[in-house]
């Protein structure tokens, strides 16, 4: 019998609300409880309570500068029924059995380890936070295993499920924390529900037919949100809920990011040693040992602060004095009395001393210069009698961070302490630009070190020791340049901070669509909420239940402008989602909204007639029947969003957030005419784009490309707009979404051309929608009235309404059936056109129209030769469409002189010759008077984002062409076919014509006649592959084919490698290749010269400079003259971007 939503959209409906609260075993309903239970028969719920009243105020709006708005609110009032069950359940906080978790559980954990299970039933439900968990058994303490609930089923009574297929219950994380920076109250496990705030709430509207409710699957999800407040006024319990849009708006990411302190002091390694010699003799060496010291002349390998080191050295000297090896008396300390602190060796009795100190210890104490690693430093002094002080040449430092010195390939390594949060491995998820910097067998992350330097390091745990190893400067330009050697990094003596902080910076890299899915789905339990997109660690995602997202949400992400462009988001601290992506969404003109029971993204579009989905006229205004309303539409010219100047901040430096929140670059966009029209000044909008960097950053969306999109629709908001406010019938509430384009026909609204009341089919954008369904009111017999209003945005930056491109149909030049010849039947005057080259194929916008269907009977058309040899003299005819059917256009006069060797395009005739209906599309003006054929201003079409927009770099089978001049003349239609032809040609220039081709054949035969057991270097040469940024989803390949043979008929191999650096080695045999990007190998026994099979190698990981090296190596008896083919491909594009599993 259909669904509630279908019935609701169709007209009058009888319905009741059924409310499901997360973790609560009773449904609430405005109708009869038994009927609700029946309707929810296949769910967890088997019980329901009546007595609910729903006060639902849906309120959504879109704002070009606030892309994540709220969604209204809902208050559920529950009068006491069934023994006041709901009131008791929501207010009983300390009843029933209670224990605590002793071990954290994630969303998939199947056992609950607690302090005690004794007071709990043998089976049943337990509650932790907002989650209800059923169990079938329990154990007591067994050995070291704490009491446990077994047979656990998580997320019982989940109003929203996960996004898995099939869907599963939605559970939560419950963390047992030992972090001293956390409140150490562990999760309570109770036999009765205790926590209500934060529970997810679903309010379903069920149609009622003859007392029977639509099933849960057929019902309409009217509200989704979470409990924010529970109130009891002595008569009933009120549950206030926030809308899921508000949940998203305030949600944070980047919680629990890993942080720690670098261990203070200096790390002394095994085999380091100190030696003291004075005028009386030479002490034994003081050795650093890996184990427990065996004597006073040994010290343990590890970290030593200055204070630690001084104590240990003084003990060494004292022991040497006791042993009679030294004669002098020595002490060591830091003197802070001067302008600059110095380490002082106070000595007496002897007449000279020499103290040999390991270099890192010497640097710590100021005896050696930082960064100078000579193995050891000699400290000596001499003098006659009396006490003397020897001062270090340099100030001591608090810490020498590097523990490895020059050992770890010049990279920084250090141990940390005071670890907090959870380290998130990003080995597999760092942007491609990092790939050459990491060893994939280790666990990598990006860190902010000492609040000053961003480093890329491997996180290593050995027993209880936690180290960051192999650290190097971040290859991504997100902080200030740090030019010194990291291994010499030290912390000054006067740095009084509690520790040297190091914390992880999360880098999320994915195409925009995937990024948004990852952020919204991820719960921290991989795969819990979605098979693919629940992949980020706890705190890195929003954990919105998947059933609120689903395929609709995912499709909306995919349809966003720039959905395939990469986003690299750097999360350096707890951040609201709003702050994280607001700038990106604004630049993409995108917004989040709630419609038909799911979250989805939408995007601003220029209102055009063609894009309209519904007509709003008098027939669908509505007010409560017993009220007096004149049904007038309110209209105002609004400057609310008018921002003729936009200042965009980007290129954020996370190490200097105190200055302008870290943004280093700005660009200001101005609609100068709009500013002048406002009297010379206009309001400014500031847009901070966290995830956009400069062209040379090597990561993320290029700010230039984002700005280009933004500019295209800027006139919508740089000039005043008109806002119309009117009512709509309840039937339209779920049929109209924010951002939809509607046609307004209203005789109370003034026309912007004539000034007279009455407009007809003016396109407008729905920018606000509010409704309340009304319904029963507690204690009253009269129901509250339903109301619904919308606000509509009409642009006024042109006196003429905006319009779409003029249509195009390409004649099918391959169609020769019957009397057709290259797509034209001269006997019937019928043109056969290609079906869906420029129209939509129906997958995005229904209904489906073939290209030819945009030229109905009566249309005036121009049939023009495509890609003529001479653009000034193309062959063309003007004609009138006699009839039209599917892909066929029947002409009135016919095309005399049809040339079947050519291809043709059908477009509208010139403006003057076109029909009135055709003139609603875009036509071109000349530059002389900016008027179309001297008659009127052209339509100001603008960038309209959407899934159907032309995507650059899409491989096309149509081919390139140079459009004839008459497509660009005064009065010509601005047709979509010519626009795309130009775009394809430009694409071709960028993707094919500019690709590198570097065949390199030598007149000298290069051969390996000496090295039998491996590869011999035969040739290497640099190749410039351009500085364009390639990524995991847009890249090029290099097609290679060698010219080679076997000199004696034996099997020989030739290997060509594309390398980041030039090869190195002492000989040409088995050289060390400089970072192989990709390689290919050919094999032959042919003694005649041949060109090897073409093999494509991946060249996206070239150096920033664009340079790479082609290295040719061969096995014994191979001969080659080099590469017969070395051809870079066009840019390649895929949807197979990185999706973490």
């Amino acid at each position, binding site marked *: 019998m259909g669904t509630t939503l279908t019935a609701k959209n169709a007209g009058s409906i009888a319905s009741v609300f059924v409310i499901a609260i997360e973790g609560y075993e009773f449904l609430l309903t405005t109708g009869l409880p038994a009927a609700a239970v029946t309707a929810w028969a296949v769910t967890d719920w088997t019980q329901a309570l009546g007595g609910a009243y729903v006060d639902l105020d849906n309120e959504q709006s879109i704002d070009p500068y606030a892309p994540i708005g709220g969604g209204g609110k809902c208050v559920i009032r529950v009068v006491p029924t069934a023994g006041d069950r709901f009131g008791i359940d929501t207010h009983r906080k300390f009843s029933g059995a209670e224990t605590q978790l002793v071990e954290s559980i994630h969303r998939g954990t199947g056992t609950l380890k607690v302090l005690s299970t004794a007071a709990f039933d043998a089976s049943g439900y337990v509650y932790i936070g907002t989650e209800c968990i059923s169990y079938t058994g329990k154990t007591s303490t067994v050995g070291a295993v704490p009491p446990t609930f077994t047979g656990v089923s998580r997320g019982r009574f989940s109003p929203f499920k996960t996004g898995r297929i099939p869907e599963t219950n939605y559970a939560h994380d419950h963390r047992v924390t030992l972090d001293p920076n956390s409140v150490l109250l562990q999760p309570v496990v109770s036999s009765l529900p205790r926590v209500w705030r934060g529970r997810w709430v679903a309010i379903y509207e069920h*149609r009622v037919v003859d007392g029977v409710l639509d099933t849960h699957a057929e019902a309409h999800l009217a509200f989704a949100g979470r409990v924010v407040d529970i109130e009891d006024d002595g008569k009933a319990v009120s549950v206030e809920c926030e809308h899921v849009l508000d949940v998203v708006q305030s949600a944070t990411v980047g919680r629990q990011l890993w942080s720690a302190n670098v261990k203070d002091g200096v790390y002394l390694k095994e085999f380091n040693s100190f030696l003291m010699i004075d005028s009386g003799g030479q002490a034994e060496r003081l050795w650093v040992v890996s184990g427990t010291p065996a004597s006073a002349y040994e010290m343990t390998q590890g970290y030593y602060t200055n204070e630690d080191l001084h104590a240990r050295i003084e003990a060494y000297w004292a022991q040497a004095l006791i042993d009679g090896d030294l004669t002098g008396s020595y002490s060591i300390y830091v003197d802070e009395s001067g302008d600059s602190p110095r380490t002082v060796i106070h000595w007496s009795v002897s007449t000279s001393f020499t103290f040999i100190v390991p270099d890192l210890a010497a640097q710590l104490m100021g005896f050696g210069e930082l960064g100078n690693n000579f193995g050891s430093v000699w400290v000596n002094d001499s003098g006659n009698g009396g006490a003397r002080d020897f001062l270090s040449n340099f100030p001591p430092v608090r810490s020498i961070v590097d523990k490895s010195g020059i050992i770890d390939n010049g990279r920084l390594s250090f141990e940390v302490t005071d670890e907090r949060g959870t380290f998130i491995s990003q080995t597999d998820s760092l942007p491609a630009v990092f790939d050459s910097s990491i060893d994939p067998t280790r666990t990598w992350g990006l860190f902010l070190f000492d609040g000053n330097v961003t480093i890329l390091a491997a996180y290593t745990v050995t027993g209880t020791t936690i180290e960051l190893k192999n650290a190097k400067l971040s290859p991504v330009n997100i902080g200030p340049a740090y030019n010194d050697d990291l291994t010499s990094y030290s912390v000054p003596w006067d740095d009084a901070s509690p520790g040297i902080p190091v914390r992880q910076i999360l880098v999320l890299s994915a195409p925009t669509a995937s990024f948004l899915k990852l952020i919204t789905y991820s719960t921290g339990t991989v795969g819990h909420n979605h098979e693919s997109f629940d992949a980020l660690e706890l705190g890195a995602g929003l954990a919105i239940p998947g059933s609120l997202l689903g395929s609709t949400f995912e499709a909306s992400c995919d349809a966003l402008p720039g959905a395939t462009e990469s986003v690299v988001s750097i999360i350096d601290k707890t951040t609201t989602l709003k702050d994280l992506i607001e700038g990106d969404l604004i630049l993409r003109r995108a917004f989040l909204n709630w419609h038909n029971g799911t979250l989805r993204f939408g995007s601003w579009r220029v209102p055009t007639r063609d894009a309209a989905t519904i007509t709003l006229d008098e027939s669908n205004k509505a007010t409560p029947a017993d009220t007096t309303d004149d049904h007038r539409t309110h209209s105002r010219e609004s400057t609310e969003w008018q921002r003729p100047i936009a200042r965009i901040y980007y290129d954020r430096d996370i190490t200097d957030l105190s200055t302008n929140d870290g943004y280093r670059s700005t660009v200001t966009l101005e609609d100068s005419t709009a500013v002048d029209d406002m009297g010379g000044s206009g309001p400014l909008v500031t847009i901070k784009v966290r995830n956009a960097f400069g062209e040379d950053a090597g990561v993320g969306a290029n700010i230039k490309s984002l700005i280009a999109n933004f500019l295209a629709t800027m006139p919508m908001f740089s000039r005043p707009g008109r806002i119309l406010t009117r009512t709509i*019938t309840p039937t339209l509430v779920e049929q109209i979404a924010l951002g939809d384009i509607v046609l307004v026909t209203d005789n109370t609204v003034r026309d912007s051309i004539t000034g007279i009341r009455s407009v007809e089919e003016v396109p407008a954008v729905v920018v606000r929608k509010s409704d309340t369904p009304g319904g029963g009111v507690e204690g009253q017999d009269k129901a509250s009235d339903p109301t619904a209003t919308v606000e509509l945005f009409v642009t006024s930056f042109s006196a003429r309404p905006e319009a779409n491109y003029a249509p195009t149909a390409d004649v099918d030049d391959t169609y020769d059936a019957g009397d057709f010849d290259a797509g034209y039947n001269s006997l019937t005057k019928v043109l056969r056109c290609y079906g869906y080259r420029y129209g939509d194929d129906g997958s995005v916008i229904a209904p489906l129209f073939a290209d030819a269907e945009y030229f109905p009977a009566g249309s005036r058309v121009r049939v023009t030769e495509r890609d003529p040899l001479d653009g000034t003299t193309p062959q063309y005819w003007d004609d009138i469409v006699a009839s039209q059917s599917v892909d066929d256009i029947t002409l009135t006069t016919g095309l005399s002189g049809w040339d079947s060797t050519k291809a043709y395009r059908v477009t509208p005739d010139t403006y003057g010759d076109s029909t009135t209906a055709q003139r609603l599309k875009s036509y071109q003006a000349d530059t002389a008077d900016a008027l179309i054929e001297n008659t009127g201003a052209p339509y100001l079409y603008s960038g309209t984002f959407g899934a159907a927009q032309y995507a650059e770099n899409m491989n096309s089978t149509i081919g390139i062409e140079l459009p004839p001049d008459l497509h660009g003349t005064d009065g010509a239609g601005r047709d979509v076919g010519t626009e795309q032809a130009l775009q394809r040609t430009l694409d071709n220039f960028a993707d094919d014509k500019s690709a590198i081709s570097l065949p390199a054949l030598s007149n000298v035969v290069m051969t390996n006649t000496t090295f039998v057991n491996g590869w011999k270097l035969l040739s290497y040469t640099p190749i410039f592959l351009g500085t364009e940024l390639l990524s995991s989803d847009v890249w090029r390949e290099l097609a290679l084919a060698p010219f080679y043979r076997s000199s004696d008929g034996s099997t020989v191999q030739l290997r060509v490698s594309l390398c980041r650096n030039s090869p190195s080695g002492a000989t040409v045999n088995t050289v060390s290749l400089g970072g192989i990007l990709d390689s290919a190998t050919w094999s032959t026994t042919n003694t005649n010269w041949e060109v090897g099979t073409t093999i494509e190698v991946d060249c996206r990981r070239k150096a920033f400079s664009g340079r790479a090296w082609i290295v040719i190596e061969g096995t014994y008896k191979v001969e080659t003259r080099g590469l017969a083919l070395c051809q870079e491909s066009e840019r390649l594009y895929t949807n197979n971007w990185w999706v973490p599993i």
Partner: protein
Amino acid sequence: MSRLEAFFTVPAATTVSATNSGGGPTSVSLTAGDYTPTLFVAHLVARLNAVRTPANWSGSLSSTTGLVTLNCTGTWALTFTTAAAGTVIGFASNIGSGAVAVAGTQNARGLWLPACTLTMQGDPISAPEVTDTRTVETPQGGTVTLGGTCKYVHRGLRWSHVARDRVMFGAETTVYASLQSWLRDTQWGRGHAWFTPGSKFQPYWSNGATHAIVGSDLNAGAGATYGWSCAPAISSLEQVTKRADESWIGMLSVELSRITSEG
């Protein structure tokens, strides 16, 4: 005669102990659930007959006196192990061994006998529906109607002449027989523990010689399954009573302005 019978909730583990010619004392458990006095007497007798055989137990609730009478063939005795099970039907103490019918000493709780004819605004046979139906209207006269929930409402239930002893607690001739006692028990939560504030009830009206339940056309003649509620609540005796004759205090009129039911 018309009457009001309120529902009360028998808790789990409610028992009586019965002795009769078949033996005893035998513990008889009563089924937890919601009962009116009439339903409870019937349930008690049924349980006694089921458990303490031979099944010669009988019981009745007088529609004139409000007293419950229990009996069994031969010598019998009944101990209200759960004391509330006795007090709710007017037995302030256990029934000792004997061979005769025994009547309670107090009016059954939740039962009010006004000894007066019930009149009301609507038809007592029916249960008038009140829905949340609402309509919006377009400028052109089109309408969209929403609705879905339904409740049943009666107004103006009136007993025009009720003797003072059936209204005022202080004038009671049978303990708990007054409207004031009924309100204390069933509406205000100030009386017997088995009632809750705002307890639902079944009104009966005189249909010729028989007593018929108000709204009997619901549920195939069975009436409202869970009874009716006073809405708005009765917060005082004064709210529902006034002198039938201004000059005399012996007779009062009682009016419940509005009662609702979910059917």
